[in-house]
């Protein structure tokens, strides 16, 4: 740690001796100006507008009326919003519990038993990730739909009435898990490829040394690979959480958030309030909630990770 600090000091010393050059500052400012303008127009201004709109009552067409925190108060009494909040949290939780370990298992297996089949398998696992959400949702419906769905047809073919009569998308207790299963298939490919790239960066000598010492595959995975993947897994956990908070496309296209509020998410609630119910103020308030939660979780997960690093 001290070595790095020293190097940094050495690098900054000649700069201190340099004379101040106003022309250089202007040049630097002009170089970063397009980036600043881009961020200001396309990122900070919309964020500021969303915060402002969340304190207004407006249809988007009518005049805006300042209502203070009224939209937020109503949100936390709104069953649909609360259901959406619950669902995104459980989606994030189960993504971390199911999708990440599954992706790690696949990624580790593919790298540990690397052979001629590995490359095509990588492509197969990644393929769902490049499909548009609409196609993914359509395939999901094709699998889980009643009457003609793959699983129901299989049940009918095998004469298993119990399987043929399951309404995966219409039963409130199953709809969430059906959509989640499709998401796991669709999103895990990215996690697999990402983890594989990081596993492949682990020096081969470490594996050879472990094997010489008689370490089993499980022991190698647990004692060497997993600690090396601490940071990448943390990044993926953040992506899972933030992605869950913004979740919209799959549940909206597969179940429209239903039946009832069984698969509703914050994104779907925002869309409905903004575009169908013409309640821009409430939709903006949901946007603010998603923004704040994303920010909090990102900071929290990074800071937790940093503490772990320090203790190591």
């Amino acid at each position: 740690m001290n070595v790095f600090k020293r190097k940094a000091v050495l690098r900054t010393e000649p700069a201190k001796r340099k004379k101040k050059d106003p022309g250089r500052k202007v040049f630097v400012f002009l170089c970063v100006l397009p980036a600043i303008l881009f961020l200001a127009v396309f990122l900070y201004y919309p964020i500021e507008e969303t915060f402002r709109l969340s304190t207004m009552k407006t249809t988007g067409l009518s005049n805006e009326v300042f209502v203070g925190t009224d939209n937020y108060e109503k949100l936390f009494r709104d069953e649909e919003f609360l259901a959406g909040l619950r669902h995104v949290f459980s989606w994030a939780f189960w993504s971390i519990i199911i999708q990440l370990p599954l992706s790690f298992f696949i990624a580790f297996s593919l790298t540990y038993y690397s052979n001629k089949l590995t490359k095509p398998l990588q492509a197969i696992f990644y393929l769902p990730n490049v499909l548009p959400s609409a196609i993914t949702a359509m395939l999901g419906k094709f699998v889980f739909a009643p009457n003609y769905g793959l699983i129901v047809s299989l049940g009918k073919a095998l004469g298993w009435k119990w399987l043929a009569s399951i309404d995966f998308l219409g039963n409130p207790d199953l709809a969430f898990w059906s959509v989640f299963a499709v998401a796991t298939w669709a999103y895990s490919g990215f996690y697999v490829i990402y983890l594989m790239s990081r596993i492949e960066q682990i020096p081969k000598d470490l594996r050879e040394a472990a094997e010489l010492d008689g370490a089993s595959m499980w022991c190698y995975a647990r004692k060497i690979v997993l600690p090396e993947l601490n940071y990448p897994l943390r990044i993926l956990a953040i992506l899972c959480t933030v992605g869950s908070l913004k979740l919209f496309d799959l549940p909206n296209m597969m179940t429209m958030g239903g039946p009832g509020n069984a698969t509703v998410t914050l994104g779907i609630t925002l869309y409905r309030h903004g575009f169908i119910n013409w309640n821009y103020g409430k939709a903006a308030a949901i946007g603010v909630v998603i923004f704040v939660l994303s920010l909090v979780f990102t900071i929290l997960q990074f800071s937790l990770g940093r503490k772990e690093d320090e203790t190591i």
Partner: protein
Amino acid sequence: MKKSRIFALCFLVVCLFSTAAVFADEVKLTIWGRDIPDDSADHAYVRALINGFQAKNPDIKVDYIALGDPGLADKTKITMASGSGLPEIFQTWGGSVMGGYADAGMLLDLTNELKGIPGSDAARQAMTWKGKIYGVAPFFAVAGIFVNEGIFKANNLKVPTTIEEFDKVCDTLKAKGIQPFACGEKDKWPALALYMYLTNRYGGEASAKAAARQIPYDSDAFVKAAQLYQSWIKKGYFGSTPLGEGYGDAQQLMATGKAAMHITGSWMCAQYANSEFTDQTIGFYAFPAFKSGGVGSVTDIMGQTDIGFAATKVAASKKDAVVKFLKYAMSAEACEAEPGRICSVPGVKAKSKLTAQAAAVFGTAKTVTFWWDQDLPPSVTSPLNDMLQTFFLQGTDVKKSLSSFEALCVENIGPVKK
């Protein structure tokens, strides 16, 4: 050499000016629609409208953009809110959504130009908001019962003429392993037509009174209709997986003879009459009334615009071209191309027996109630369809659901006037 260069330059300038002059004379109309004007039978009218108008009016360039559903509604809403990038004409079902745009001053009042166009009163009313006409509705949809006549005949059943008869017919169908009703409630809105009819048959003008805030949405007619609806769901009249099936699935159930009835809009006439879509014999009937104890009658019909167009404020400078287009949209020449929808233009004959039956039902209408999810303020329409879906969930207390909806209406439309 020099002379030839000067000549070429002059020639170029003349060409440029003449081209500019040609474009300056050309009026461009941007039209946002729902359907692609392709070879599909469903899109025959849109195709005939765009191609026919363009051929007849070469000085008006039509830029028709198909946005689909809900793309059209979403893009129109965003553009209306921002106030920029508006098309001259957009497709709409009229009602409160169009009314919201009119209230915001985004639409062009064409009352004087369009009031003389012949058409059905209901269609004109749907495109009218606060006494001003903003567009035209060449096609109008009414809800009724599509009946698989083959199934009914094979089972010696008669199409119910009273609501009381439904139970007997549905029980017989169920016993034979045939699903009585196709619904597709995963999409939420398909349940509305039947609920509107049941409410009307129990309470007459209950919906109009509730919208005018004279009675609440959890009053007697609404509750009774919901309870009857729920009892039919519990009896399995909508099959065992109505919430897992979308509207497309419901159509397939009818098309393949797995369901015997489908209560929905007349826009399905083209498909149900198409031998490539179904080999079943399907008929269209009015929704019956109660034999005793009801208020609404069989001539109270539910429906609204099927295809309509309205003009936006940016069309003010191109009013002549816009009116020309809207008049052509209401012409027999364009409407003749439509194979299935009920035409509001006089003199246009129905292309199929099914459409003729639907048009006959529309012809008997003494009152027409517009779709609640198009006519009520947008702030309550999506919750209305959400609530209807909960009727299909086990253990739903419909009275409680209606009371929650009423509370939302109080907040957004206002309290019941005493």
